[in-house]
């Protein structure tokens, strides 16, 4: 349970960085930390203490395999989620590059062409 709490705390760090920091690159890093924290939580949910990796060898009994191995479904989910996070980060960095080129600064407060 403490592991889950720590992971959520890590996600909180990511959210703080994303929302509170003024430098755009720090926001990007905050988003990356948030993504990784949530993925970590998802993998951790599938973990069983003392279990074997989810590789079924020839001649194993499927029922015993299911009882004795780590849950492979969250691993598959996290693979997808990591790639999604990678795509989002890449898009975000491309936007930061473009904004830096347009405004000459990475400070969010100075980019105020959009009115409220």
């Amino acid at each position, binding site marked *: 349970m403490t592991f889950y709490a720590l992971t959520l705390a890590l996600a909180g760090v990511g959210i703080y960085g994303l929302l509170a920091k003024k430098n755009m690159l720090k926001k990007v890093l905050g988003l990356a930390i948030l993504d990784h924290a949530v993925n970590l939580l998802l993998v951790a*949910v599938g973990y069983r203490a003392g279990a074997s990796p989810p590789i079924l060898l020839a001649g194993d009994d499927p029922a015993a395999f299911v009882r004795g191995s780590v849950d492979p479904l969250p691993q598959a989910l996290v693979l997808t989620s990591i790639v999604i996070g990678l795509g989002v980060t890449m*898009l*975000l960095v491309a*936007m930061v590059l473009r904004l830096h080129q347009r405004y000459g600064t990475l400070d969010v407060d100075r980019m105020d062409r959009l009115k409220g």
Partner: protein
Amino acid sequence: MGTYIPVFVALPLLAGFACLLLKGPAPRATPWISVASMLGLLALAVGVRGDAGVSFAGGWGVRLSGDGAFVVGIALVLDGLSRLFLLLVAVVGTASAVYALRYLEPEPGLSLFHVLFNLLVAGMNGALLAGDLFNLYVFVEVASLASYGLVAYRTGGTEVEAAFKYLVLGTLASTAILLGITVLYAATGYLNMADLSGAIGRGGVPPVALLFASSLFVLGFGTKTAAMPFHAWLPDAHPSAPAPISAMLSGLLIKTLGIYALVRVLYVVVGIDENVRLVLTVLGCLSMWGGVLLAQAQDDLKRILAFHSVSQMGYVLVALGIGSWLGVAAALFHALNHALFKSALFLSAGSLERVTGTRRLSEMGGVFRRAPATSVGLVGACLSISGIPPFNGFWSKLLILIALASAGQYAVAVIAAGAALMTLVTFVKVQHKAVFGALPARLEGAREVPAAMYVPVLALVALCLLSGLLWPVGVDGLIGSAASAVRAPADERPAASVYVETVHGRPTR
């Protein structure tokens, strides 16, 4: 029977990748590919009338071993609720694709625009058909990513800023959704929505976890719907996008990723109880009034429309918060109408911008004689959103008020009626400033837009009129089956079991 269901996702995917392939050799053909794929979707969506079906990926159906341990099935589920939104996506998508034929210049990025456009539609269709939570999340992300790119299409400073803000808030929302899915999976071991609803119904999830997951879902999907406290991205993102994309975003995205997902997850999977209904009602009231009030101070036509999207989604949320069959039907009917008239409004705004060269209402005026077709379209759409009979807005707002009153929520009904009045005031002003009134000197030479731009708007407005005139038939048929898929009208069967029957093909209780 359900074998053609994947085509809804596969067709726009194929079209999108075909556009990418043609980026070098034949970029001018890409708008036509989009139109063709949208028309194909329209034919398919109309053709599936009445059928509900399930398509299990790879043909792996539900398989229970002797001790009931394994349930395998990644399903695409088509039921009444999905069918309603699939039809909407096809209709608005066709209108936007035809509009984009002439609205967008043949610039180098055009083929990439159409790649993203098709991916957006593929993502939305996939989200509508997903039978398990994780697929829903993935398709929501696909559609969202495509929309972030489309909002930034013009790559000017304001557009990229708007897209940045949209991306940040949208990703926060998606992360919340993923966290909610994690909590539910950890508690039950299921991702399939039908099985999850069964497990939750049997009490397999501790209440704290359920509450945590529900709040995460409301946070995540509520942000996608642009409900009031989470709406901050919409007023910047929707106006900055090119007009056909604004139509797709306001007309479709906030409904498929927002309203549909909320209904599916909250009504079917988690189960509506008083707390969730209260939250929906509160969010709805905030959105209704917040949207119209904030729109008062705006001069930019597209920003006014964007704020009103927030407000109209508030109506839908309030109706969903009632929890009865009538409430769900009214909410879905209003969502359908909003998709039709809001996309018509955004496309008209784009046409007006082309005619007058500006988006600011204070600089427009009296283009009625110069651009009659555009003006008729705009007026028709304004009448719809204001709730003037016989257009559709009147009937859906009336139905929402009736549903509220019949559930005893008189205070909310008064709030809703007040917001409707404010909407009427705003759009009378819009019509007067944009279309009627005196023509400024600099607009003497203004000309009408090409037919490809005003025909989709007029078609959408005609659909608004049709939907308004034929609403008793519509509510019985299309909306009725959609609402019944979620909430049983008369008998007391729990709502989720209808869905479970569709997926598993046998009654579970």
